[in-house]
């Protein structure tokens, strides 16, 4: 196999790492791998070399349903004018502390 490139059909996987207990998994990149076991190994080897995580998820990239960039305006623009949705108009009692 030395020198050969793998076939172009090697599936792509999205990698999610949870940095610590209590936090949620966050997307950090992708890897190519033939199956889910090798995808997990590849994710471990590529993305957790500096103690980045305590848990890994891999998801086949083609299983992710993404919003259409052409729908960007109708999806996201209407929220720009609704600043009252941000909870910045309330007085927070001191006893509550940080929210």
């Amino acid at each position: 196999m030395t020198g050969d490139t793998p076939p172009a059909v090697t599936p792509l996987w999205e990698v999610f790492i949870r940095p610590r207990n209590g936090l949620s998994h966050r997307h950090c990149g992708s890897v190519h791998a033939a199956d889910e076991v090798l995808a997990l190994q590849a994710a471990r080897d590529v993305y957790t070399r500096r103690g980045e995580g305590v848990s890994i998820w891999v998801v086949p990239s083609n299983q992710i349903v993404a919003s259409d960039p052409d729908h960007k305006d109708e999806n996201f623009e209407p929220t720009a004018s609704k600043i009252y949705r941000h909870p910045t108009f309330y007085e927070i009692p001191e006893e509550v502390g940080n929210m």
Partner: protein
Amino acid sequence: MEIRDALFRQLLRLADDCLVLGHRVSEWCGHAPILEEDMAMPNMALDLIGQARSLYAYAGEVEGKGRGEDDLAYLRSDREYGNLLLVERPNGDFAQTMLRQLYFAAFMEPYWREAQASADETLAGIAGKAVKEMAYHIRHAGEWVIRMGDGTEESAQRMADAVEALAPYTDELFETDTVTQTLVAAGLAPDPASLRAEWDRTIDMVFSEARLTSPEVRYPQTGGRAGLHGEDLGHLLSDLQYMQRTYPGLNW
């Protein structure tokens, strides 16, 4: 044999195994078949070189003649190296590299697991860290051996060739001599021969999924522990030791 001398010699053997295999695996850096493996293999190489450093440093301490890890790694000749012949075998193709890794890790994982109970606290400490690294090497290399053995016609052929080429070097893993016997008697290190059954089980499990069979080895290759190496180790050391040999005492 004096216990201290036996401990020194065994630490050197283990360190030599780790350094030589670590160097071999590092030769893949920048040449792996896929980018993901180009990260995975240096990771494994660095695990092994890290173990080698701890072992050399402690060997130097046990010897008590002022030699440090660099002296032991860079200033001994091939005849003074006590590594297994298996670990100095050239990388060959990806199949051979992964099989060599599996053979070695399947032995070292139980070795380190038992060494955690060593009466020597430093060795037990090194073992505690190394055992986890070896468990991952078994998994990583094992999964590849399974996929290549049970893969395409070409990958299956290459895997079968790798088994044919490397199986003769596996008996040496379990060799015992006065060094290992002295350490077993003192409760300092595991008996290599006692790890054979577990090694066989690990290899059989992987091989049955990989549709591979272990050949009967009629002429086991041995001699590494006594410093009798193949030609390949000399070339490896000339590369590994070049800097210290050319610029003695050079520091970062």
